[in-house]
């Protein structure tokens, strides 16, 4: 087939399939936190990427400590947890200090969080320096897994995939199977009624925002396995995150998953058959056309307006 042996083509199909799934999990991790904040609260959080960067720098920082104490092989799991906690509390504070004053002015949150993202970028630059840094990765995250001699499955890809699965299931269980999730959904559906039955809606808002930020922190920690960390790393991810959330339909978790899957597969396959930039252009064009026909995204929200 086209001068390549059948075996070659078979191997590539396997690896290409994996690369699509790997991109899917990256997009999903990026978008989940935003889906919670934007989808559930209607807050356009332009600083989402910077919360990922918080997670990434946490990981890098802990990896430096780990090298000193010679625990490189085990620190990574703790780094992810620490990234979640730190981003969660920063998010909690940001909601308290900034976001809650702007709930009635959704467009102003856009400007305020964008300003926040610039402030955070400059803080990163002053604290960690302008140069990009990489986390020291444990041995077990490096290299590839070989089911046959000619197929390489990158282990970091598998790791990100596993993490995306855990976080997604965790978010699903929290939103639909716990009292906390019930309160969030109640507040989203009808704030007045939720308040009337005794839900502290302000507290719910704060926790929702912090949860979204915490998940962004986890995503940032995971991405240190595939890319480097710099003060402006977050701005690389913000466009993709919004694309996934808006395309999926803002208020729907299923929509986010479906849209991340669709975009990842389209992009990965198109990039294989066209050049990399043309693949990306075609994907974006398709999204634009679909959004023109379905402005509410793939999965329409079921909230009463």
């Amino acid at each position, binding site marked *: 087939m086209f001068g390549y042996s059948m075996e070659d083509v078979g191997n590539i199909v396997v690896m*290409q399939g994996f690369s*699509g799934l790997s991109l899917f999990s990256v997009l999903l991790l990026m978008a989940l936190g935003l889906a919670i904040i934007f989808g559930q609260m209607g807050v356009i959080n332009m600083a989402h990427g910077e919360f990922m960067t918080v997670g990434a720098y946490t990981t890098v920082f802990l990896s430096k400590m780990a090298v000193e104490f010679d625990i490189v092989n085990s620190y990574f799991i703790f780094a992810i947890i620490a990234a979640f906690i730190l981003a969660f509390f920063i998010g909690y504070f940001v909601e308290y200090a900034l976001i809650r004053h702007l709930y009635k002015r959704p467009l102003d949150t856009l400007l305020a969080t964008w300003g926040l993202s610039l402030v955070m970028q400059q803080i990163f*630059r002053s604290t960690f320096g*302008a*140069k990009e840094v990489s986390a020291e990765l444990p041995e077990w995250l*490096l290299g590839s897994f070989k089911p046959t001699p000619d197929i390489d499955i*990158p282990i970091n890809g598998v790791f990100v995939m596993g993490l995306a699965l855990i976080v997604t299931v965790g978010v699903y269980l929290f939103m639909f199977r716990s009292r906390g999730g019930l309160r969030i959904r109640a507040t989203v559906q009808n704030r007045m009624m939720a308040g009337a039955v005794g839900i502290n809606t302000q507290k719910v808002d704060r926790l929702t925002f912090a949860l979204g930020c915490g998940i962004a922190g986890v995503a940032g920690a995971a991405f240190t396995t595939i890319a480097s960390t710099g003060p402006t790393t977050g701005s690389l991810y913000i466009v993709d995150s919004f694309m996934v959330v808006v395309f999926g339909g803002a208020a729907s978790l299923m929509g986010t998953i479906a849209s991340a899957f669709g975009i990842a597969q389209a992009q990965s396959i198109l*990039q294989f058959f066209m*050049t*990399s930039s043309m693949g990306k252009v075609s994907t974006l064009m398709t999204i634009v056309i679909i959004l023109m026909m379905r402005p509410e995204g793939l999965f329409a929200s079921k909230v009463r307006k």
Partner: protein
Amino acid sequence: MSNIDKNQFVKKSMVLSALSLALSLPIYVDTSVAGDFPTAKVNTTGLSVTDDVVKVGILHSATGTMAISETGSIQAEKLAIAQINEAGGVLGRKIEVIQEDGASDWPTFAEKSKKLLENDKVAAVFGCWTSASRKAALPVFEKDNGLLFYPTFYEGLEQSKNVFYTGQEATQQILAGLDWIAKEKKAKTFYLIGSDYIWPRTSMKIARKHIEQHLGGTVVGEEYVALGDTQFGSVINKIKLEKPDVIYAAVVGGSNVAWFKQLNAAGLNAKKQNMLTISVTEDEVLGIGGENLEGFYSAMKYFQSLKNSNNDKFVAEFKKAYGEKAVIGDVTQAAYLGPWLWKAAVERAGSFDVDKAVAALPGYELTTAPEGYVKVDPNHHLLSKLRIGQWRKDGQADMVYESGLINPDPFPKGYQ
């Protein structure tokens, strides 16, 4: 950081003034130099030159995305200027630096150039890094007849009376490197990959022509990825399918790190795959991580590990000023040449006037450059050598090849 180095320079200059008290004669001779060149004579165009001080500008991005790359250049230029001042300055005048921030925003580079040239009347500017920032500032330099020393290796196709290019232009960096890898690795098939903007695209155009017309090889793939893109899965699979003898890469910025990490994770390391890159210097290795680069090759005119007495001294002074962990990449070294070349130009001309300095510089041979001998060509670029370094795990390179001096050729015939 700037505080530390300032302190060190203060200390140095205190030591120096103590010395000058003890041995007042040589310093006295030094300062008398200014007397031999009265200001009215050496400055006929209204530049900011007094009997004791001459002002120059440094214009790089200290903030924004490009700060990562440009910080090294700022440090090198300041180091060179401090050393020149210690040695008595230029025509007996101390150099005073006015530093402006281009903020990684190309129109800002034009505005700040205008400010430096029209308000501050600086005698020379050391600055710009990306081609885009240089292209933005160039009209200002040409209109106000300023003088710019530009440090980055770049795509060529430019030659301005008002600019000296201290980095390599594309053919200097590309041709000898491709010749070497084609011979050394008996490479016939090449896969070209770069970031999607002017420098990689122009470079790859030259590389493709050279591979097809002069090396008798074939290009089995040519790929450009968006700046900042971090997903290389599909591209790597394409490379695996094509199995090229050599990957020729010019990926920059954050993408660069993702590219090498994912390549390694996909099992394409130096044991299985040859790669020659023209976009990785010691600065980039910090972010990419030596373990992801180990065994791959870079084509540059300078590596920090270069062994010669000029470079030993330069590396030691640089580390003294900016810390033991500081690394020096190709562009940082080229930026360091700028102030020295300007000093030579002014002294050969016996004048700070831009026209006279520009006319005096071509033909000058700088023997104290860390990269070794360089010579200024009439086309305002430098004659320099090309080196191939093979990366080690610790982030330094082993030199595996050194070319002879290569003439700069910014408008290569047959490659456009």
